[in-house]
């Protein structure tokens, strides 16, 4: 959806991930970019150059925070130090919403630093939703959860991934960051129809969309964010926009990062779909 309560009633366009190889280009050339997404953990620090650069970026651009280690789905309670640092950063960036993944990655205080898949059970949905509420209540801005790419499914699962996403979002009353590349990757790894997934997501909860590239191996696809977006993912994105309307969209490119212009040009390809959505809305 365009502006809604899960993205702070904003109407952002096409953004890209803020990555260090592009800092110099952005700060010296000041390219026109709708918004940047930052990885929260890279800036949840006490001082130094990263925060100085972030402040310079904030002077000229809109920034949205995206986390990688809140682990909404971990059975353990949120780490208080993590929450405290996250809130400090939220106050600095004034991000209208905050996203992190529908996954787990830590247990008993040990961190894997990976986005591990959830078992799709009602117990997991209840625990995850509770944690999302706890985080949102602490940081006091809307939260959106992102579907992850996965390479394994659990015997204990009681529902499909999209049913689990919907169950969690309903219970937590939170937003969804719909990653269409992740849907595509998981659909290939687990043999489901990605369009069924996109068609099942509650449109009114979608705060933002992610697009990205991935790597294909013999038996599976890995979510590597090191390639341009492939056509099947663009088609899936097109369907998502058809359902959701003009939605804030972000291209992730995290490895083998090309020039700023190449990344931005790739992201701007989303315009052909967004333009149709705007036209449809006007009509």
């Amino acid at each position, binding site marked *: 959806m365009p502006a809604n309560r899960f993205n702070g009633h904003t109407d952002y366009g096409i953004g890209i991930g803020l990555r260090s190889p592009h800092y110099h280009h952005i700060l010296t050339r000041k390219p026109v970019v709708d918004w940047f997404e930052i990885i929260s*953990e890279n800036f*949840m*620090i*006490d*001082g*130094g*150059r*990263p*925060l*100085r650069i972030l402040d310079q970026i904030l002077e000229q651009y809109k920034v949205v925070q995206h986390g990688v*280690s*809140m682990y909404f789905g*971990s*059975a*353990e309670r949120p*780490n208080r*130090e*993590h929450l405290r640092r996250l809130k400090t950063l939220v106050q600095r960036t004034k991000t209208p919403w905050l996203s992190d993944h529908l996954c*787990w990655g*830590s*247990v*008993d*205080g*040990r*961190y*894997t*630093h*990976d986005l*591990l898949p959830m*078992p799709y*059970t009602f*117990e*997991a949905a209840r*625990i995850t939703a509770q944690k999302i509420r706890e985080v949102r209540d602490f940081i006091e801005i809307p939260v959106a959860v992102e579907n992850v790419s996965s*390479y*394994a*499914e*659990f*015997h*204990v699962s009681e529902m499909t991934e999209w049913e689990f996403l919907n169950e969690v979002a309903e219970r937590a009353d939170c937003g969804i960051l719909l990653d269409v590349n992740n849907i595509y990757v998981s659909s290939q*790894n*687990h*043999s489901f129809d990605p369009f069924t997934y996109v068609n099942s997501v509650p449109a009114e909860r979608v705060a933002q969309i992610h697009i990205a590239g991935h790597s294909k191996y013999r*038996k*599976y696809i*890995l979510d590597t964010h090191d390639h341009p977006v492939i056509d099947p993912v663009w088609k899936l994105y097109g369907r998502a926009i058809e359902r959701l309307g003009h939605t804030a969209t972000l291209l992730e490119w995290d490895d083998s990062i090309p020039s700023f212009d190449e990344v931005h040009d790739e992201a701007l390809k989303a315009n052909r779909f967004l333009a149709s959505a705007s036209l449809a809305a006007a009509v």
Partner: protein
Amino acid sequence: MKLLSLQRRMARAVMTPLTSSERMRSVAPDGRSMRAVASQIIKPNDRMTSFERLEIYNRQYWFRVLSAFAEDFPGVRAVLGGRRFDAMAKAYLIDCPSQSFTLRNLGSRLVIWLQKHPSWAGERQNLALDMVRLEWADIEAFDGLREPSLKPEDLAGVNPAKLRLHLQPYVSLLALRYPVDELLLEVRKDSDDLDVASNTFNERHKRKRVSAAAKLKPSPIFLAVHRLDEDVYFRRLDREEFAILFALHAGKSLNAAIESALRSSPIAVVDRAAHVEKWFHTWSALGWFCRLEKSPKNEKAASR
């Protein structure tokens, strides 16, 4: 199976060390059958077994943490050599898995761990420990907290016998046996060169670097690792300079710190005041003193 139980099982499997050919073990070091663990929790599909699917996460975990660790400690790698460093890194990460939401803290326990496991560095233990201290201080200086700097007016009317000065949290004081600062700068310079060089050139440089580390002779240095204009610097200190700063950091008053530091100094008594004045002028210009009532304990402020 309950969520917590499943997550414990999977995390244990994911964090199990890989084989020497970087595959998932069929049997974990504690005797668990990894095939059994995988098939109990993960479904197979038409292309992959439960074991193969779990292995993706097992490999990703180790590739990620080892790569982050190596990125943080290129100097230690130069001291130990690539193969030994990689083995040491695996052993360290098995004993000290991440307990933080950020990979930045992965090496926070390396000094203590290496002290307890000297066999990894062998004859180069002291050199390796010095390098670990320096590289960890570098990480701390890079993004450590900057408190408001002390200004001359903050000192107006304060009795020097009672005055306690506090160092910025991002400043680390290191007393080292080896001049590892020079070695680390060489390693970094090499890395910059290697980014644009051929493989043959890279291999030659790697050998040169390891050989340089092996030849490094003990030569005690005193170092402040600090930040200026958001760049991290290694500043060599005189013995007395270090002693004053260390005493101040330990909570001694200004007078007591100066007195204890200069007690056995070879600097002539008539010259001492000029030295102290020059040092304080430099430290103040670098913004090392802060207005904090109580400076957070700098755990890395290490002495031998």
